[in-house]
């Protein structure tokens, strides 16, 4: 049987196993199989593989607390966790009445500690409430050191003194005071740096607009999802307090419509709490509502402390209460809450899960002081803690700290600067520094370029010092590797030279892991780096020659490492890194060093695999038929040799050869439509200017055979050149001058979906180039999916190529791009738009 027939049959064998062939295909395959032993064998082996797959596929371990955790996160989205959720397996709720569609967790919580709104506990709550209202000092005067509560936790009962000091007579007065002093927007402005230890953090490290980057539910959290129904816990508290609740103005608070409030407001500033004052809303009403919420928060906080520290509390209730404590954002009570949680670390040695909860809660507090506690707790010996508990505690501390760092860039920066700065004074790497560096390195992956310059430079300085000290212990190497990766993650091209030097350093004086990390970092830098960062290079509008040279030197450095480094791991990483840098030089380097003689074995084979993958990545992005290329790599690359000449002849589009049009998008297009986003978001950080420069450059490179048209769009479309016309010199210069006059429209939204539909309507356009920052008013992921689906549908007939030029600008923009949900959605949308329509996403 000819190989040709077998090759056609082979792809059908897989579907045949599943009975997914059409009748005709089935007949053809059956006939062929009867005659072809080779294909019979092939089918047999495939069936065997599928059987192995099905019988031996790994399964995850059972996660008993998944639902509980989910419920917790869901209820985090409501006020103080007082939300109705159903927790079917929760013992806490036994014996409690069903309340319609769900049951009240906190009622269960309260019930579980046999809380009866009795005088004693109410007195604690009221006293604490008063204390909090007056400030931390007052609290301490009223209750003594709250750590005592944990001490008493050890001995059983709440101390009588704690109860006796509650002062009921002042309570109403204080409640009123809370009401008067509460700010309409809660405490959102000074989230991370408010308390005493935190005040050391430099305000300059707080990027502009940070106040809007809040964890869901923080700040004006009490407003988020406050249910019109009074919380039963509150009711109980008020019952215990007397009739004060009648004096509190009853303000109806509308629950948030939808769930937008849970997204980081940085990405969606309008999505605040339910109480965002509207111009028409009297401020007094807002203040009253806020006061009521703050009061609820204070009382609830008091109760949670009480549950957390009471010996009588059931373990699950205590754990939940401790976790919830980490979520309060009550500036006057921050230090107090931290002390309570830190006290918990000391006194909960016998209750490991509650201790872990205390770690987690500290991580959720998003304060530097809490983070420091975590670093020390993670490293400390832990009084009376078993080795196992100590180990898990350290782990929990690390996770909590990482969580805290991920929440806020400032925290990551602070940890970085604080723990890295002393490095050059004391060459010995302490465990704390190592820990911090690793954490920061992890955090940077997400925070990326949003990190303060200071922290990044600190990392570079530390790296330089350690490098010069020629240290070689394992820990040092780990620290160095972490720092190196950090530099890559920050996408700051200014440190590119250092990374290049590290890759090229004499291998005998540098641990392989550092060179590997440097190669990886260069790949990251090449992929995401802000080449042409104006502050560094003074990039001119007419090009980036300097930047291009620097990127080329990165590629040549990686290319050298790929073929010459003595360590296989470094060679492989260099090959992978090359695949992430979408320039012609990367392609050339990979092609030039593909093996030419079979068989490829051993280490060379693994490296070859990396090279093939990288080639796939690079060409898959630009080639019009990535599938074809992918198949070739998959079939030929895995078993035989992929000859550079084959790649060149068959797969690489012609324009890559010339290299000139690799980034000059129109390339082979005969007609191209440029779409320029002029919506409100483009007004910021010079994005509009950048986009216009890009567009002008592209128009300039058009040849006279290409027809082009230009539209500017936001929530409407402005057709500068409605229908495609040949790119004559005079038309080009007219269009360039009109493009230069364009201004972004204040307040205008981005109707990407509509304009793309319009542009993909029947016409004579075979290529669309979209210049945008991708920020638009989508409905989250669902919105992105809708846009993609709609565009895909409209383009399914025309099959136009859609290239996207992502206009990302400046550090804060990049931060938004990478750090927030919306920014992430935006890049994701642009990437998928381009790739789904045979195009290419290019970052500026």
């Amino acid at each position, binding site marked *: 049987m000819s190989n040709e027939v077998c090759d056609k049959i082979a792809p059908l064998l897989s*579907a045949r196993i599943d009975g997914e062939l059409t009748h005709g295909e089935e007949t053809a395959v059956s006939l062929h199989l009867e005659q072809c032993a080779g294909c019979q064998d092939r089918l047999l082996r495939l069936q065997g*593989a599928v059987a192995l797959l099905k019988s031996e596929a790994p399964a995850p371990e059972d996660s008993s607390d998944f639902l509980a955790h989910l419920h917790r996160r869901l209820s985090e989205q409501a006020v103080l966790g007082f939300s109705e959720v159903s927790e079917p397996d929760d013992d806490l709720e036994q014996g409690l009445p069903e309340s319609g569609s769900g049951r009240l967790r906190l009622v269960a919580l309260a019930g579980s500690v046999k809380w009866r709104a009795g005088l004693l506990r109410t007195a604690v709550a009221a006293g604490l409430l008063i204390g909090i209202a007056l400030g931390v000092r007052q609290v301490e005067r009223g209750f003594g050191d709250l750590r005592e509560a944990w001490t008493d936790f050890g001995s059983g009962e709440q101390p009588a003194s704690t109860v006796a000091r509650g002062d009921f007579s002042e309570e109403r007065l204080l409640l009123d005071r809370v009401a008067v002093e509460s700010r309409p927007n809660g405490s959102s402005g000074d989230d991370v740096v408010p308390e005493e230890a935190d005040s050391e953090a430099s305000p300059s490290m707080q990027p502009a607009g940070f106040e809007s980057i809040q964890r869901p539910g923080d700040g004006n959290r009490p407003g988020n999802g406050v249910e019109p129904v009074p919380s039963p816990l509150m009711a109980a508290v008020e019952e215990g307090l007397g009739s004060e609740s009648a004096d509190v103005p009853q303000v109806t608070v509308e629950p948030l419509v939808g769930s937008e409030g849970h997204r980081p407001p940085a990405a969606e500033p309008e999505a605040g709490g339910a109480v965002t004052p509207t111009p028409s809303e009297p401020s007094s009403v807002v203040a009253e509502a806020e006061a009521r919420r703050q009061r609820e928060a204070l009382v609830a906080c008091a109760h949670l402390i009480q549950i957390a520290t009471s010996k009588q509390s059931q373990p699950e209730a205590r754990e939940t209460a401790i976790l919830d404590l980490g979520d309060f954002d009550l500036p006057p009570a921050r230090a107090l809450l931290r002390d309570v949680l830190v006290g918990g670390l000391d006194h909960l040695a016998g209750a490991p899960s509650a201790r872990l909860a205390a770690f987690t809660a500290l991580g959720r507090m998003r304060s530097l002081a809490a983070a420091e506690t975590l670093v020390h707790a993670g490293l400390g010996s832990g009084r009376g803690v078993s080795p196992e508990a100590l180990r898990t505690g350290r782990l929990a501390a690390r996770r909590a700290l990482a969580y805290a760092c991920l929440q806020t860039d400032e925290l990551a920066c602070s940890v970085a600067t604080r723990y890295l700065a002393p490095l050059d004074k004391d060459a010995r790497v302490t465990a704390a520094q190592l820990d911090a560096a690793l954490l920061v390195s992890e955090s940077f992956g997400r925070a990326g370029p949003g990190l303060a310059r200071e922290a990044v430079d600190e990392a570079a300085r530390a790296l330089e010092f350690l490098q010069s000290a020629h240290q070689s212990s394992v820990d040092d190497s*780990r620290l160095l590797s972490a720092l190196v990766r950090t530099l890559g*993650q920050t996408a700051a091209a200014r440190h590119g030279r250092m990374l290049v030097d590290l890759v090229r350093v004499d291998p005998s004086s540098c641990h392989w892991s550092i060179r590997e990390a440097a190669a990886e970092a260069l790949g990251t830098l090449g*992929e995401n780096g802000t080449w042409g960062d104006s502050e560094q290079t003074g990039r001119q509008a007419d090009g980036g020659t300097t930047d291009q040279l620097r990127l080329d030197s990165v590629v040549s450095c990686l290319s050298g490492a790929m073929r010459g480094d003595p360590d296989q791991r470094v060679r492989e990483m260099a090959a992978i890194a090359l695949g992430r840098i979408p320039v012609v030089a990367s392609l050339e380097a990979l092609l030039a060093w593909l093996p030419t003689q079979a068989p490829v074995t051993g280490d060379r084979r693994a490296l070859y695999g990396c090279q093939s993958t990288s080639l796939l990545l690079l060409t898959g992005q630009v080639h019009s038929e990535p599938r074809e290329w992918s198949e070739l790599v998959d079939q030929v690359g895995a078993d035989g040799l992929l000859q550079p000449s084959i790649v060149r002849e068959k797969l690489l589009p012609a324009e890559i050869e010339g290299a000139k049009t690799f980034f000059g998008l129109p390339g082979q297009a005969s007609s191209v439509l440029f779409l320029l986003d002029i919506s409100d978001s483009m007004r910021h950080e010079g994005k509009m200017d950048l986009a216009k420069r890009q567009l002008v450059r592209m128009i300039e490179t058009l040849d006279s055979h290409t027809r082009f048209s230009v539209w500017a769009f936001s929530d409407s479309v402005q057709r500068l050149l409605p229908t495609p016309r040949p790119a004559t010199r005079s038309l080009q210069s007219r269009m360039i001058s009109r493009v230069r006059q364009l201004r972004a429209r204040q307040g205008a939204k981005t109707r990407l979906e509509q304009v793309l539909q319009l542009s993909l309507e029947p016409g004579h356009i075979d290529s669309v180039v979209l210049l945008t920052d991708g920020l638009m008013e989508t409905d989250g992921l669902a919105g992105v999916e809708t846009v993609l689906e709609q565009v895909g549908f409209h383009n399914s007939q025309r099959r136009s190529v859609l290239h996207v030029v992502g206009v990302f600008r400046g550090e804060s923009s990049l931060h938004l791009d990478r750090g927030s949900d919306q920014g992430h959605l935006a890049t994701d949308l642009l990437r998928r738009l381009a790739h789904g329509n045979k195009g290419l996403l290019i970052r500026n």
Partner: protein
Amino acid sequence: MAFDRKSVLPQEMPDEELLVRCRDASDQEIRVAVGVLAERHHGALIRFLFRFVGQSTTAEDLAQEAFLRVYRNARKYKEIARFSTWLYRIATNLALNEIRNSKQRPRLSLSRPFSGPDEGEQQPASQVAASDPGPDALAEKRDLRQAVGALIQEIPEKYRVVLVLCDLEDRSYAEAAETLGVKVGTIRSRLFRARGHFQRRAEQRLRHVATWGEGRVST
């Protein structure tokens, strides 16, 4: 009241009906609905994600995020798709993003004790695969399941997701196509590719497993 307590309980409603009712429901009612949906689907979803991303903690985190997104977007649910399709599509996208991002992240893991690499025995399957794919090392692995898991993780994610959906989660081609938003033909070719990928590597590295591959071809 979107969930009338006198009528059917949320626990008794089909998935799609629950979501349809979320359109006019309050936040707390949606939480209840999502709680019910999570109860029904979390096990299968975590298993799917685990097999796709290769790490159980990541799988759980992604599943959590998926349900949170369901919660956030519940009011926008359209009846054109089955809930499970919608859920898996969200989860798949999250997982793909995670995979993409994790390639950019340093490979040192926070989940390992920091006292030294020696303690980090619990490497996830993907790291096992990435760090030492040599045939000998794999052949020596006692745990076949782990080896299979590692091999699955080596399949490029575009193909892997199809393999996990069709072969491990027993979705039909049509269901997988709907979940991933591609055509059935694409599923067919990607599955072929994924299986081929797996088969080749399994044959290279798991030769010691003599039991599979035996059988008869039905023609």
